[in-house]
Every structure is written in structure tokens, then in C-alpha cells.
């Protein structure tokens, strides 16, 4: 049904997308796109436009309520005084039911918003674990597994059938034949293994903003793949002219300077796969982010060769994201497109800015491989 608000809502969305009223576009805030709080919780991004007011600077502090000693860190920042001023409607009996969404739900939301297909697993037949689940019902069993509800149901059935049930005086007495017990069933759970290998170019031309984009994007990739695989492993490779494997922290925070030889990363990636993740039982997802400025055409040729002969044969999908840097973006994605563009295992995406992250995620994950 059409609501009166639809027009205002549509207008707001157009502003957010930058279609109309460019003067307001600059006030659009994406919120914390991935404020990962606690262990696996996160807030959903909701764009909003903050009309400028004279207001107090942020970080003014305030009064809170709860346990803790002076010096203890408290959860998320306070709502700024006056934040609610737009919602002046009194007595909005709105209370927050659950501020956080679990990562699983988030992945579901992500999948829905981006219309991502579920991923086809491979290697699933090979590794199987058995689990006991109490789902069955039996007429015999130990007393400790008596199922009262089913027992009384049976008794009620019997009493109605025999005509001894009196609705005005609903007394139900189970006899021995009525008693039901829970029983277990063995379930075979196929277990699938997946590994993401992140590779990032950390040469001088990759600035903080580019890293931020990579960070946000890999968070979402992680989230989605985690929802598809239990026990997802991640490995991190950074490279400039040489590649090395690092931990997560270093991956996102290192800044090197120097030339770029992408082949070094691909070689390392190949070695990791060969050593630890046999293709027969692992789902392998290498993601590589760079600004696309490779050292030489020669090296690029070597990269393509590596991909063709070694990497693409083993992986589910190879993804390359080219982040636009202040120095412009490079040639590499074009070269890949030229030589490998027709391979369905290769997924390429250009990421111009933060807003392009969404569409890029879709580029990477939209194939459902």
C-alpha cells in the first residue's frame, strides 16, 4: 500500500545516492559501517544526513548508569545531547530490543541485500563427522529420557478413543503403553573446509584510505564466507617487491614503501596452498587487493602464468580488487581482464571509493562459487 511517507522516503534515498541535491550529499554519513563490537557483533549501517546545527563538540562526556569503577572503559559512546531532537514526537514508546545482530544474521542480511547466492561447496563428501541428535521417539527406553508431552498426548488420545475422557474434569492418567521416550539418531555432518588467502599490496602508493577500503571489504567477505563454512581459516600476505606472510593486525596496519612485484605474492600464495591446503578437500578463496601499479610488464606476465598454471587449478575462485589510489589506478586489472577475463574462476572488481564497496562485494561473491 502506498503511504504518504513514500515520497519523502524516495527523496531521501535519492539524496543519499547523490542523484539530487548535491549540496546535501556531503552531509550523508554512512554510520559505522563495521564497528565490530565485542566478539562477533556489529551495527547495521543506516545512512543519515546531519543537518548542521550549532552544537557542542563531540566527546563531551555525560552521565551514565551501571556497574564499574572510575577508569573502567564503557561500551559504545554516548548519544550526543540533542541527537534525539529530530524525533521530538513525545512518548514514542520505543525501546531497543536488541542492539546487536550476530554475525550469522548479519551475513543473512548481507546476502539478502546483495542477493548473494549460496556458495556451492566442494570436497564435502570427503570429510564427514557424526553427531548424536535426540530427535526420535520410541516406545521403549530409559526412564531418564521420558518424553512427558508425548506421553500425555498418547494418553489423551487413548482416553478420547475409549471414551473415558471428560472435558469438564480433564484428568489424564498415562498407563504403561502410553509412555514415550526420546531416542537418538546418528547424523552425518559433512564438514567443509575453507580458507581465504588475503593478499594486499602495501607499496608506497597504497594510502590509509585504500587500506581502509580493503579492511572494510575483507570484513564483509569474511562475514559472508564464515556464514557459509564452519571453521573458516584465513591467511594474510602482504607484498611490495617481496611478499611475506603476516598476521591479521600487521596486514591492516603495515605501510611499506617500495616497488610492486605482484608475482612475489602469487608465488607465496601458491606455496601456501601447496603446503597446507590440498585442493581436493579445501575450498580456497584467494583475494588480492592492489592499486594495480605493477613494476613491469614482465612481472605481470609472470603473474598471469602463475595464475593459469598453478593457482586457478586449485582454487574455487580467484578475486582481484583494484583500489583507486591518489596516483590513479594501474594497468594490472586490464591485463588480467585481457588474459583471464573469460575464466569463470576469476572475479575482477574496481573499487573507486568506500561507496563502491557494496557493488564490489557483489562482484566477488555474486557467482556463488
Amino acid at each position, binding site marked *: 500500500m502506498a503511504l504518504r511517507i513514500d515520497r519523502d522516503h524516495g527523496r531521501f534515498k535519492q539524496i543519499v545516492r547523490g542523484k539530487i541535491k548535491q549540496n546535501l550529499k556531503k552531509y550523508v554519513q554512512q554510520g559505522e559501517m563495521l564497528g565490530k563490537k565485542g566478539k562477533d557483533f556489529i551495527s547495521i549501517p543506516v545512512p543519515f544526513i546531519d543537518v548542521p546545527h550549532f552544537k557542542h*563538540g563531540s566527546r563531551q562526556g555525560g552521565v551514565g548508569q551501571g556497574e564499574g569503577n572510575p577508569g573502567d572503559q564503557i561500551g559504545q559512546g554516548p548519544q550526543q*545531547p540533542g541527537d534525539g531532537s529530530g*524525533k521530538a514526537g513525545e512518548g514514542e514508546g520505543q525501546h531497543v530490543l536488541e542492539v546487536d545482530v550476530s554475525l550469522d544474521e548479519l551475513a543473512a542480511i548481507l546476502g539478502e541485500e546483495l542477493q548473494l547466492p549460496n556458495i556451492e561447496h566442494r570436497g564435502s563428501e570427503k570429510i564427514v563427522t557424526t553427531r548424536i541428535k535426540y530427535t526420535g521417539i520410541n516406545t521403549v527406553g530409559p526412564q531418564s529420557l521420558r518424553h512427558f508431552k508425548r506421553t500425555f498426548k498418547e494418553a489423551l488420545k487413548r482416553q478420547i478413543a475409549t471414551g473415558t475422557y471428560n472435558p469438564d474434569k480433564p484428568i489424564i492418567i498415562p498407563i504403561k503403553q502410553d509412555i514415550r521416550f526420546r531416542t537418538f539418531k546418528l547424523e552425518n555432518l559433512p564438514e567443509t573446509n575453507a580458507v581465504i588467502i588475503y593478499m594486499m599490496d602495501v607499496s608506497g602508493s597504497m594510502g590509509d584510505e585504500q587500506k581502509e577500503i580493503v579492511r572494510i571489504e575483507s570484513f564483509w567477505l569474511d562475514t559472508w564466507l564464515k556464514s557459509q563454512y564452519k571453521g573458516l581459516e584465513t591467511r594474510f600476505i602482504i607484498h611490495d617487491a617481496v611478499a611475506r606472510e603476516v598476521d591479521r593486525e600487521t596486514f591492516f596496519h603495515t605501510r611499506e614503501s617500495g616497488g610492486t612485484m605482484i608475482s612475489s605474492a602469487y608465488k607465496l600464495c601458491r606455496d601456501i596452498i601447496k603446503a597446507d591446503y590440498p585442493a581436493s578437500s579445501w575450498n580456497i578463496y584467494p583475494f588480492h587487493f592492489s592499486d594495480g601499479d605493477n613494476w613491469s610488464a614482465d612481472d605481470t606476465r609472470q603473474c598471469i602464468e602463475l595464475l593459469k598454471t598453478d593457482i586457478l587449478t586449485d582454487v574455487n575462485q580467484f578475486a582481484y580488487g583494484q583500489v583507486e589510489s591518489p596516483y590513479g589506478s594501474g594497468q594490472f586489472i586490464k591485463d588480467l581482464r585481457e588474459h583471464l577475463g573469460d575464466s569463470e574462476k576469476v572475479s575482477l572488481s574496481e573499487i573507486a571509493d568506500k561507496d563502491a564497496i557494496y557493488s564490489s562485494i557483489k562482484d566477488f561473491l555474486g557467482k556463488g562459487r
Partner: protein
Amino acid sequence: MPKSLTPRLQDLKVEIEGYARAFGLDFFDQVFEVLSTEELNMVAAYGGFPTRYPHWRWGMEYEQLAKSSEYGLSKIYELVINNNPSYAYLLEANAEVDQKLVMAHVYGHNDFFKNNFTFKFTNRKMMDEMANHATRVRRWIDKIGVEKVEDFIDVALSLENLIDQYAPHIKRNPDPKIEKTQQNTRAEGIRVDRDYMRPYMNPKEFVEAQQKKVETEKQLQKKFPERPQRDVLAFLLEHAPLEDWEHEILSIVREEAYYFAPQGQTKIMNEGWASYWHSTIMTTRALKDHEIIDYADHHSGTMATQQGKLNPYKLGIELFRDIEDRWNKGRFGKEWEECDDLRARRSWDKKLGAGREKIFEVRKHYNDITFIDAFLTPEFAIEQKLFVFNFNDKKNTWEIATREFKKVKNKLLQSLTNFGQPVIDVVDANHDNKGELVLSHKHDGQDLDPNYARETLKNLQALWKRPVAIMTRGEGKGLMLRHDGTQFTEKKVEL
């Protein structure tokens, strides 16, 4: 489309209204309408009014509400409008126990709207007024185009907090006509009939002081405005070079800001009062045995606290209950204040039973600031585990700063003063005799956000047409931020 109450809900309404009246609540006629989730989100986005002028910000509110209800993050149970008759909206999908709770809550709000002094001058026919505003804005949109009108509304909204929240209750400036007749250039002192009494009645120092006063008064009149004016919007309406339609829209924005102001001034009291009553009515009258779990679940959800935020429902209800308890037991006044004996204090009970009466009085004569100031006691702060938090720059986190009572109370009062918004006056509309507008920010230890100030000045300049500036402080030094229409400047000044 809004539906009227089902016969069952109608019965519940009669029942709850009966309880509310028996408890002594005094309210406007109450109209309930039943809405679907989408409709309720829409009405909430419009600030409670089904008809508002077209603007994208309602769409933004709607987006947030729709998203959060869709993902199950939060849910609006009810909305009440300060109007006569009062309107309230119920969510169609709510369970019966929720509807009862909401109704009881609504009668609390309704009573508060009708009786609390801050609402005394609000327009009680705001439903109609808002619809009129919408019609007027639409007419201008038809005439001169949506872009122009919307751009102007954006500018006006950017200034909407520059009102004088106490203006409806007091007269800030003397009536100019009376002033004219009283104008004297020479002070004569008190009228004396017998000459020999003159030196006694009007000693020299007194006459001199009087003379000085007259002169400053004269000095003031050369200034424009004579005295700092807090209601910046009114000043702009009177003196800014606005076109007819701009004038009309700005006055609409101002009128609506004034209508909503009392709700900001009494958020804690209003929610506390309504919660006190839903709790009282439900637990002593309306609840059926089988509803108790759902009621408790819902009630505790509403009262839930988070560390970094104060929940006005929780703080309000607890404070009302504390007041009731203290006045029941006679824990107030000189004797109580001066009693140092902890044991005596703990068992203090004069059996006055004046609690209920007291809270009715409080709901009439207080706003959040005076409410907190008068009734927040050290014991209450400890019991409610109140603390002050600050941002730790070194650790880049928010942390608990102190639980010291004085600091907690001061911080709380500060955050409520002027709704936590900076206090800003127009001080000079003809600065340097060049028609420049100067505002002054009353610095209370909190700096203005410089980026926001910059953008806001730009909007203000668009209205005033001549350069505009604001005097404030930044990092302890006097600052003048100025925008002349093309560029922004900032210079240090002595304040």
C-alpha cells in the same frame, strides 16, 4: 489506514481509563487509533502527526525506523500526541497485554501534557495546525518549485534550535511603548514633597547611580538589538530580508520548534510519569495472572539501561518512586537534612503518607532541570549507580570518570540545560555599522563543534544576506567565526 478500536480494545480502553481516573489522573479526551507497523513507523517519522509538510528528513527517520523494525532491532509500541483531544496510536500486531500497558502509559502522558506547566502555552490544536502548515508549504511548492522550497527548509532546520525555550513563560524585553513614555534623560531620584528631606531621601551617591543607569539605558538604545536576544529565529523573522514565502516557512519551522520544546524540557519527567502509571495501573489493577510474564518482560525491556546512555524511562520512574517514598516516610525537611545518625536515617519513617500527593504536585510544577536539581539525592545516585563518563584521549575510549555525587548532578544538569544545546544570542545586528549580524555563544566549558558551526554560519548567512559571525571560545581563547557569503574566516578576539 487507521482503524478505530475493535470492540475488545474499546472495552479495554474503558477499563483502563476508569483505573486512571480513579487514581486521580486528569487528562484530555483520549482517542486511540490502530495502525500497522509501516503506518506507525510513518507517523513516528512525522513526529507523531499523520500530516506534515513534505520534506526528505521524514523519509530519513522512516528509513531508520523501518530498518530497525525490519531487522528486529527495536520496535515502537505507541505514540502519543499533545493535543486536545489527545491522539495515541496502537500497533495492530501487539498482544493484548501490550495494548493494556500502552494504554495505561498513554493516560500518564496525557495527564502530564494537560497539567505540567511547561505545556501550558502549547497549541492544543496542533493536529490541525500541522495539517495547515503542510497545506501552506505545498502551496508554495506548487508556486515556486520543490527545489527552492526544500532548500530553504534545509536552511531553516539548520537554525531551528536557536529559540528561547522559556520565551512562552516570561517577558524578556520591556514593552517598547511603555518604555518610551518613561524615558528620562536626567535622573531625579525619589519624589520628595518636603525639600529638607531631599538629601536624606536622595543622597548624592544614589542620584549618581540613577544617572548612570539612565545613561547606560540610553546607550543600549543605540545598540540593535538593545539587549541580547535569545530567540534568534524571531529576530530573523523580524529583521532578515526575507521573501514572503521564506518568512512563512521560517515561521512554521519556529512554531513547530516551540511546540516540541516542552517535550524536550520534560523528557525524563514525562516518560517517568507515564511509566510510573503504567506500572501502577498494571500491577495493582489491570493485569491478569497469565499476563504477568509478558508484562514483566516488556516493562523490563523499557527500563533497560546501557552504560553510555541514560534511559529517561528508568531515571524518571525511579525518581518519582523515590520522591513518593520519601514523602510517605517524611524523609525531607530540616530535621532530615541535619540528621547525621545513619541508623536513624535508615529507619526514618514518620508515616506521613504524603507521597502520592507530592508526586502529583511535582508533575505539575517542575521540568527536568528543576526535577533533577530538587530531588536527585546522593542516596539515589548511589542506588541508581549513576556516574560521569568522559572520553580518554590517550586510550581513545570512553570511560567512567567519577561517581562523586556533585559531579554527577552537575553533569546531568548541564546536559539538560537548553536541551544540551549551546546557548546562543543575537548581540549585534549592525556590527561595525555594516549591517553584519553577530551572535554570541555563552560558553559553559563546552566548545562548539567547529565544522558544524562553519556550515551553520553559511546557512545563516544565506538568510541574512550580509556577513554573519559568532563569538565563542575555542580551547580557552576567544574566537570569532565569520562567514561573508563567499568565505569563512576565523580570528582570535578578546572576550
